[in-house]
């Protein structure tokens, strides 16, 4: 209780200081959250700009191959193509180097950040003429090809004008430009996380603060948001679709929302093929919101989503069928990687393998692209313990909200309405489907990885913070908001200081040092 005779510190302070202090004075929810979101956005953009230059050039996952794709599109005005192994071998047996889309010679110094490029950049022969053919157990394979060629073209087409603008800069400088151009997509993802939290539970300070904070400082999302890659585009578009799903559930999928959802899905399918994973959840959400008995209702709404998405994505997938005979060129990729690739396991085997899950957890918080920067067990446990507590809190939330007793009587978040329940179910379904997609990829490829479920980061952040909110006492929530923010900042500082900078320093003596 403020004493009636207390002096006003702000009144006594000089004018600029008074203004600065006024910024932190208690105010209403709308003003406070607006200020917070602005500061979070500034912190995010500045952090990302810093991170862009902290990671050695081309050290991000597949940055060399993404850059090569952009170069083919910008300089030859066509899409790159994966080699057909049998045809390539026939040419290799009778000629010098078979024709095809290879990674540029001037990027050979970065070969250790590339899949399938025989890497000896200090060797005089290979340094002068990078290898294009390797022999494995008597069989010929291409070395250093544009292995991203089966990716849809939207990201690369968007980068092409910037390649033209910067054509005189050299590859490393262009790469930094492309990294900086990823930041707006990361920022959009953070803003969509804020919108997701405030759409499902408007007015709740804890979720409005912690959900976007979690996304803004999650180390791997930050990493994707400062790299040459189409993943952050996929993450941003998936996050937009996630928000549209929730808005659709709330408003029973009006025509406008369905069309926006179809448009976003079309863009996502033109960015990365794994965006297809959201389609069963869209179907589930529409049926939940409209009611399964209203067949005409959900078929009509489904058509409003599917038709624009299919119309937008059709040219690309037709081109894929004409070029490769299938929709994703996975047969061609499997053949090219045949000398080292093997399935990571069966669906059930991977689902029940604790080591598989632990490795995905490590990749979610560290490793950074080429699995060259593993975090220590101590730090991983420091991350895992609060996350496990949040998972327990989420289970507690589901039970308490279902019963509607005890603290639920006083807490509106613990009394979700029907549509809010459906939104929570959709978030759970998104996370489950994304993880199953990781497993499905692993049934054919050894290199399945956590990165493939990053598109559901906003749904995962929402559920995590909902769980954490449940176990934090009401009175402690304002402080907990600050603690979550501080913890994510400190995690970033720790990772940069303990892992990323030493990696950069250590890489100075190695090939591909930037």
């Amino acid at each position: 209780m403020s004493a009636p005779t207390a002096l006003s510190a702000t009144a006594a302070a000089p004018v600029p200081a008074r203004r600065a202090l006024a910024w932190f004075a208690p105010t209403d929810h709308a003003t406070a959250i607006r200020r917070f979101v602005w500061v979070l956005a500034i912190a995010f953009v500045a952090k990302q700009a810093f991170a862009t230059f902290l990671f050695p050039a081309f050290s991000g996952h597949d940055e060399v191959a993404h850059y090569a794709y952009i170069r083919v599109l910008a300089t030859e005005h066509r899409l790159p193509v994966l080699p057909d192994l049998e045809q390539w071998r026939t040419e290799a047996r009778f000629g010098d180097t078979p024709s095809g889309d290879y990674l540029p010679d001037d990027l050979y110094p970065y070969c250790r950040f590339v899949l399938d490029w025989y890497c000896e950049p200090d060797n005089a022969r290979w340094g002068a003429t990078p290898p294009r053919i390797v022999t494995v157990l008597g069989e010929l394979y291409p070395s250093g090809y544009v292995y991203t060629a089966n990716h849809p073209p939207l990201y690369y087409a968007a980068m092409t004008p910037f390649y033209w603008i910067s054509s005189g800069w050299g590859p490393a400088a262009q790469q930094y430009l492309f990294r900086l151009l990823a930041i707006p997509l990361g920022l959009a993802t953070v803003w969509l996380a804020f919108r997701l939290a405030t759409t499902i539970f408007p007015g709740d300070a804890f979720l409005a603060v912690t959900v976007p904070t979690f996304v803004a400082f999650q180390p791997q999302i930050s990493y994707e948001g400062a790299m040459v890659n189409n993943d952050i585009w996929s993450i941003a578009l998936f996050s937009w679709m996630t928000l549209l799903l929730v808005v659709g559930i709330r408003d029973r999928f009006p025509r406008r929302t369905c069309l926006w959802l179809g448009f976003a899905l079309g863009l996502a399918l033109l960015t990365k093929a794994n965006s297809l994973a959201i389609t069963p959840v869209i179907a589930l959400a529409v049926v939940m919101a409209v009611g399964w008995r209203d067949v005409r209702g959900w078929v009509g709404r489904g058509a409003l989503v599917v038709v624009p998405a299919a119309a937008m994505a059709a040219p690309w997938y037709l081109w894929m069928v004409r070029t490769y005979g299938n929709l994703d060129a996975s047969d061609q990729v499997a053949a090219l990687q045949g000398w080292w690739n093997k399935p990571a396991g069966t669906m059930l085997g991977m689902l029940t393998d604790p080591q598989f899950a632990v490795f995905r957890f490590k990749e979610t918080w560290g490793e950074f692209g080429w699995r060259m920067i593993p975090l220590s067990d101590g730090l991983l446990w420091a991350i895992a313990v609060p996350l496990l507590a949040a998972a327990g809190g989420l289970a507690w939330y589901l039970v308490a909200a279902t019963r509607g007793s005890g603290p639920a009587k006083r807490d509106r978040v613990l009394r979700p309405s029907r549509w809010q329940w459906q939104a929570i179910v959709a978030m759970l379904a998104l996370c489950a489907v994304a993880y199953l997609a990781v497993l499905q990829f692993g049934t054919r490829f050894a290199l399945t990885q956590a990165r493939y479920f990053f598109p559901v980061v906003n749904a995962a952040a929402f559920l995590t913070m909902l769980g954490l909110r449940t176990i934090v006492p009401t009175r402690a929530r304002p402080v907990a908001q600050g603690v979550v923010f501080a913890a994510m900042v400190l995690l970033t500082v720790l990772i940069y200081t303990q892992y990323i900078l030493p990696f950069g320093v250590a890489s100075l003596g190695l090939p591909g040092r930037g």
Partner: protein
Amino acid sequence: MRDASEPGGRRGVSTAPRPVSETRRDWIAWAVLAGGLVALVLLGSLSVQHGPLTGFEERVVRYWPRFTGLMRAWGFPRPLIAAVWAAGAVAAVAALVGIRLAIAVPDDPADDGSSEA
């Protein structure tokens, strides 16, 4: 916990001047936060297990400044190095302000979304 109707209360909308003791507490909280961040950077530097940097002086005094040398070795021009450090400084200040603002966001008792269902 303060009552919602009190000035400075979590759910209240305060227009009243803040007492000196509360402002002083604020500044102490700021100092603790800033000190905590600096301490963590130092601790983080000390506990680096890998890389070529060894010894207290190398790790603590010259660790982050070494980033400048790293950027020079990568061929970055001087204005870019300055811009990178400026971005880092802005991020650090914004992070500190963000922690304080995160605590200051109150619930909105008027809006629970139920009317939009």
